[in-house]
Structure formats: structure tokens, C-alpha cells
């Protein structure tokens, strides 16, 4: 199967600061849920930011559908078909839910089509219809995350990248978020997420990537990552429970 997104030996960092990513590799295949794990400061979020062009890639390559994304701005990467939801969810707190969804289609010329797609999303996520006129900032964390994830679908992206979607959410809500991700994957949208809770992230993913000190240590089927004794010990909190 041809790779959808291929990151090879990427070096990147903030401003003129030290390189946070120092030879990161990543292979993303279509239609699967990919999970990047690693300790704090490993460069997980940095990798996502480098892919969407929020950070400059100093060396290495980022190829998407065979085209280089290097040097592209976030809005250009979005047009190519990659949607990014950062950790803080990127909502507009004083805009209504519906207005937030409209912002998702900001780059689309056909505004009637945007409205149609929003109607579809309200169909699929009833909470968004229920809260349509409510200010996004006044919703619960889980509802805000649902809105942020649903909003990516307006662009009908190839890849949705999520930076710690479970952050600050109750376990029950986290399960709902993962079920949305699997629904996306079943529709052919590739999901790439960064997860602090490595065990939970891998259990809910098809493909796992272990990042540490800015380098990719291991990538493979999530089950293999979970089963690997070295990774068990280093990143999953000791020996596998019996």
C-alpha cells in the first residue's frame, strides 16, 4: 500500500532554539488510526506542528500524496487535505457552535455547500444541533472536543491530526472521542493522534509510533508496540500486567 504521508529524518524546533525533532520518521497509511506516544518533551506535538507548517522543517522531508509539504503555510496544508486540531482545540469561545463550524469552511468558496455540510454534521452529532446557538466557550470539555473534531470534517480531509484529544476529559468521554476517530477511519479518513496516555492510545489505534528525544524509535502495528517488552518497560509503565 502506498504511504499517504511520509516523514523522513525531520529536524525542527521553535524559533532559533535547539532542535526538538532530530531525525523523526513517520509512515502514515490511509484509513487507519495512528497513535504517536512518547515521554514528555519527546517532540510529539512538535512533529504535528512541523507537518502542518506551524514550525519550519529545518531538514528532512515531509511528503503527502507524493508532494512535498516543506515550506507550506498551515492554510496551504489544509487545502492539501490535512486538518489539525491542536491541544487547546482551536475553538472561538465567543462564537456560537454554528459559527465555529462555519469557520471550519472558511477556505471553501461555495458557502451554500458549507451550510449543507454543517447540516449533515448536526445530523451526525446531535449535540451540535442542540447547542447550535450556544457560545462554544461555555460548553463542557467533551462537547468542545466533539465540536473541534466534527469541524475538521467540513473540509472532507484526507488526514485529521489530533494533539492529545483526551486531555482533561473523563474516561467515558474519552471513549466517545475514540469512537468518533474510528468512525472517521471507517469512512476513509486517516487519523493521526498524539497521546500522553500511551496504553490507552495504543489500545485504540491500528498503528503505533514511539518517539523519544526527537527521534522515532519504533513504529509498527499498535498491537506489536503494545507487546514489545522494551517498550513496555520504557514507555508503558513497567512490566505487562498479567
Amino acid at each position, binding site marked *: 500500500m502506498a504511504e499517504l504521508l511520509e516523514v523522513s529524518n525531520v529536524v525542527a524546533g521553535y524559533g532559533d532554539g535547539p532542535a526538538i525533532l532530530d531525525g523523526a520518521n513517520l509512515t502514515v497509511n490511509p484509513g487507519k488510526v495512528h497513535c504517536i506516544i512518547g515521554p514528555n518533551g519527546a517532540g510529539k506535538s512538535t512533529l504535528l506542528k512541523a507537518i*502542518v507548517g*506551524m514550525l519550519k522543517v529545518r531538514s528532512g522531508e515531509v511528503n503527502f500524496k507524493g508532494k512535498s509539504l516543506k515550506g507550506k503555510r*498551515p*492554510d496551504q496544508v*489544509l*487545502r492539501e487535505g490535512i486538518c*489539525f486540531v*491542536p491541544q487547546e482545540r*482551536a*475553538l*472561538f*469561545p*465567543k*462564537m456560537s457552535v454554528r*459559527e465555529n463550524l*462555519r*469557520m*471550519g469552511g*472558511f*477556505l471553501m468558496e461555495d*458557502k451554500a455547500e458549507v451550510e449543507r455540510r454543517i447540516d449533515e454534521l448536526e445530523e451526525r452529532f446531535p449535540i451540535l444541533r442542540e447547542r447550535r446557538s450556544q457560545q462554544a466557550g461555555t460548553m463542557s470539555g467533551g462537547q468542545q472536543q466533539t465540536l473541534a473534531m466534527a469541524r475538521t470534517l467540513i473540509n472532507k480531509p484526507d488526514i485529521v491530526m489530533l494533539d492529545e484529544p483526551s486531555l482533561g476529559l473523563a474516561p467515558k468521554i474519552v471513549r466517545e472521542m475514540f469512537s468518533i476517530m474510528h468512525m472517521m477511519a471507517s469512512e476513509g479518513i486517516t487519523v493521526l493522534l498524539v497521546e500522553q496516555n500511551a496504553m490507552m492510545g495504543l489500545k485504540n489505534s491500528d498503528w503505533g509510533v514511539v518517539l523519544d528525544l526527537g527521534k522515532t524509535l519504533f513504529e509498527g502495528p499498535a498491537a506489536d508496540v503494545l507487546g514489545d517488552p522494551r517498550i513496555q518497560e520504557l514507555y508503558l509503565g513497567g512490566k505487562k500486567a498479567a
Partner: protein
Amino acid sequence: MVDFIQTLVLGLALGGVFALMGSGLSLVFGVMRIVNLAHPVLIITGAYAAYWGFRTLGVDPLVMLPVAAFILAIIGLILYKLVFEKEAKSAKFTQMTVLLTFGTAMIIEGALGTMFTNTQRVTSPEYATDAIFIGDVFIPTGQLYAGIVSLTIIASLALFLKYSRFGYAIRATTQNRDAAELLGVNVNMVSMVSFVIGIALAGAAGSLVSFVFSFFPAKHWEWIAILMSLVVLGGMGSILGTVVAAFTLSVVAAFVGDFFGSTWSTMTFFLALFLVLLVRPQGLFGEKPELA
């Protein structure tokens, strides 16, 4: 009772003009986090534009309004390119703007003094000295017209922000700059255009001010605290808040003037600024300030 209504009417009449004077300031702070101490002197520049049109060409200040707005828009564009654009990425930008705009205000004040002298000026179209009587209550027509024009402009601005594509972009940038950029908003462009709109609003307000108040170049120092009190009470960056605050404080100031003498009415704004910062620094419609 008549006295009460009379005071209320006079307060409301001034509120409209103050609302327009403050809304440009609020817009510029909201989008760019610029504390624009030069806003009042730019309003006075607009007033001089109207004055110039009135004296030399005999044009009504209300007709000069779009011209004043246009002239100020160009001044705004020059200021943005010269003073603000390069520094906008600096981490201490907001703090820096206080000094930057303070300096800018001094320079513009000096330039106005050179061009128009420091004499008190006012434009005097006929309606400026006229009044309408409803029963025993009189409404000064100058203030009434200024209030109506102000509210019309603010309402158009509000509709533009609420419904136009560019309005969405401005609001999104105000609320979450990074997120707006991720979704494809050209935030630098939005910053520039919002700044220019904000300064054009100062020009529009100036042409109304020209027949409501008398003015001279250094008059703007008086207005800084007044406009700041409106924007702070409203919640920095909230235009609706600024409008509500403008009407509230103008009415309160009118009553204070009525009871304690007109020298005390300005005090209302200073006291309000002081109290709001002490008790509710985020104002009526603003975000809670972050603690970090």
C-alpha cells in the same frame, strides 16, 4: 420629573458620540492588542478635517464624515506600516504599544498645532445650535444627529462583523489568533484592515465631535481616560460592551453634573475606570484576565 427626563436625554445624546469614539479603540485592541493612546488625537485629526472642509469649502461636517474617515484610514495605514507591523510578533507587544502610541499622539498633536494653531475650534452648522422640544424636554439637534449617525455606523459595523466573511475572520482572529490561522485566515491582513477600520472610525467620530464639542490639539489628553473608561468597563475588545458603557457612563455623568455641578461630571469616567479595574477588571463583556 421633567428635570429627570431632561438630564437622561442629554446623557443619552452624548452617549452615542462617546460610543463611536470608543468603538474604534475597542476594535483595534480586540484584534491587535494595541492600547491605542493615540486614538483620541486621531479623533481630533478627524475633527480638523471636518473643520477644514467647513471653513474653506463650506461643506457640512456630516457630509465631510466619509472624507474624514477616508483621510484617517490612510493615516491609519501609514501608522500601521510604520509603527506597528514590524513589532507585532514581539512578546511584549501590548506593553510596547502604550509607549509607541503615546509618542505617536505627541507627534500628531504637535503637527496639528503647527497646521491649525492651538486656538479652540468648532464647526457651526445651523443644527449645532438648534434644539427640538418634546413637551418641556429639549433635545439639542447637534447631539441628536451625532448620536443617530454614530449608532448607524456602529450598527453597520456590528452587522459587518456578524455576517460578512471578513467579519468572521476579524472575530476569529480576535478570539483565537492561532486557530484562525490554522483554518486559513490571513491574520496579518486581518490585523491591518481592522486597524485601518478602527482609525477610520476615529475620523468619522471626529467629524461629529467637531460640532458637538469645541476642540484644540491638546484636548485629546482629556479624552484618553474617558475613552479608556468606556473600553475597560465594556470589556476590552468588546464593541457591544463599549456601546453599553458609553451610554451608561454618559447618563451617570449627566446626573452627577446635574447634582454636583458640571465640573464633577467628568469625574464619573475616572472613578468608573478606577472602580472597574479594582472590582471587575475584565469589564462587562470581557474575558477574565489570565492569571499566569
